[in-house]
């Protein structure tokens, strides 16, 4: 029998150990996905707890047509979408506030950090389905079949969302880079 199904059956029978095992199995990867979606620990932690509570209180409605993992991720993503839509996720950390350590890799770290900021901003501008598909594929390392189950779409649609998402993300980042460079260029002109 599937390990998760066995844990679910034992949880439903009231076995506390099975309940704890299920939580421990999925808490870290689920937290990581949620953190990437909402951008801060408080929201991610809150969503993690809500997702588990919703899953365990609704265990009787789990039809077992998909895996428990897929079902849990569906719940978590739906909860995260609501938060994402309501609040502004982008935590813009001005580059000046970055603590500069006396390290030969400082400049490289700054560039990487700046690129990561741009990436977060670019991801925020993607359509929801493309953004979630990209995150599940690249950051949560899910296969397209799993993504299709979570997103309730076909494998072909999941792949198409991924392709379009990557293409659009590149275009957005290129545009943002150009703006940044033209902004820096005009600043240099002002200084001189």
């Amino acid at each position, binding site marked *: 029998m599937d390990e998760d199904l066995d844990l679910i059956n034992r949880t439903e029978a009231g076995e506390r150990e099975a309940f704890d095992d299920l939580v421990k199995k999925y808490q870290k990867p689920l937290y990581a996905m949620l953190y990437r979606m909402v951008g801060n620990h408080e929201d991610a932690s809150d969503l993690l707890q809500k997702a588990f509570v919703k899953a365990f209180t609704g265990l009787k409605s789990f039809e077992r047509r998909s895996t428990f993992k897929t079902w849990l991720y569906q719940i978590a993503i739906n909860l995260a979408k609501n938060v994402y839509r309501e609040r502004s996720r982008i935590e813009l950390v001005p580059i000046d506030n970055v603590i500069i350590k006396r390290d030969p890799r400082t400049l490289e770290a700054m560039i990487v950090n700046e690129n990561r900021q741009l990436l977060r901003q670019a991801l925020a501008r993607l359509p929801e389905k493309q953004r979630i598909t990209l995150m599940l594929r*690249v950051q949560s390392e899910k296969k*397209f079949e799993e993504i299709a189950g979570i997103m309730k779409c076909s494998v072909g649609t999941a792949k198409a969302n991924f392709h379009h998402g990557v293409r659009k993300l590149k275009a957005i980042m290129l545009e943002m880079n150009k703006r940044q460079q033209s902004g820096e260029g005009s600043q240099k002109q002002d200084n001189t």
Partner: protein
Amino acid sequence: MCNDKDIKELIPSYLDQVLDEHEHEMVMKHLESCGDCRADLDLLHLMHEELVPDPGKAYWDEMPSRIFRAVKARKARKWSFELSWLTERLILPRWVIAASTVGLALVISWFAVQAPQRGPVVTVSQNDEPAHEIMVSDAVPLSDLDHDQLATIATWARSELVSIAHEAAPVMANTADTDFYEEITELNTNEAERLSIMLDQWEQEG
């Protein structure tokens, strides 16, 4: 722009280093000559390396207990919500119950007041007059009745008493016989013999 969807689909797996040898070789060879796919790889690598801060061991150790308590609390709230939902749906609001009770009381009292006011319809015949029906209706003081009305009521009352007496007579007789019979059967042998001697003496004396 590269339109090789097969390669593009494999890039995330290439990044995860989970491709088999043949696929790995294929992607690596393609990347050598395709700038577009190399850009994709860099971008996805940046995404992949996005750091998620670790809240710490204590956080993870405590999480199952925290969730367990939250699940218990949620189930308890759900039960009380369902109960209140049920009572609200099946048990009528108080004002409805109050209104229904008052309405029912009014209906019952109306019937209770009305019923005695309807009296029996009786057929009476007086002297040579043809029989006609009268109804004993609302209570009326006898002083308000004229002579003919009083006579009609008296005739009706008499006929009612007669019918009651006729119905009661067999019952009274039977009751008397039944009582006497029961008393005789309760006598023992000596008493029964003594009663018989007494009856013979009364007969001889006349």
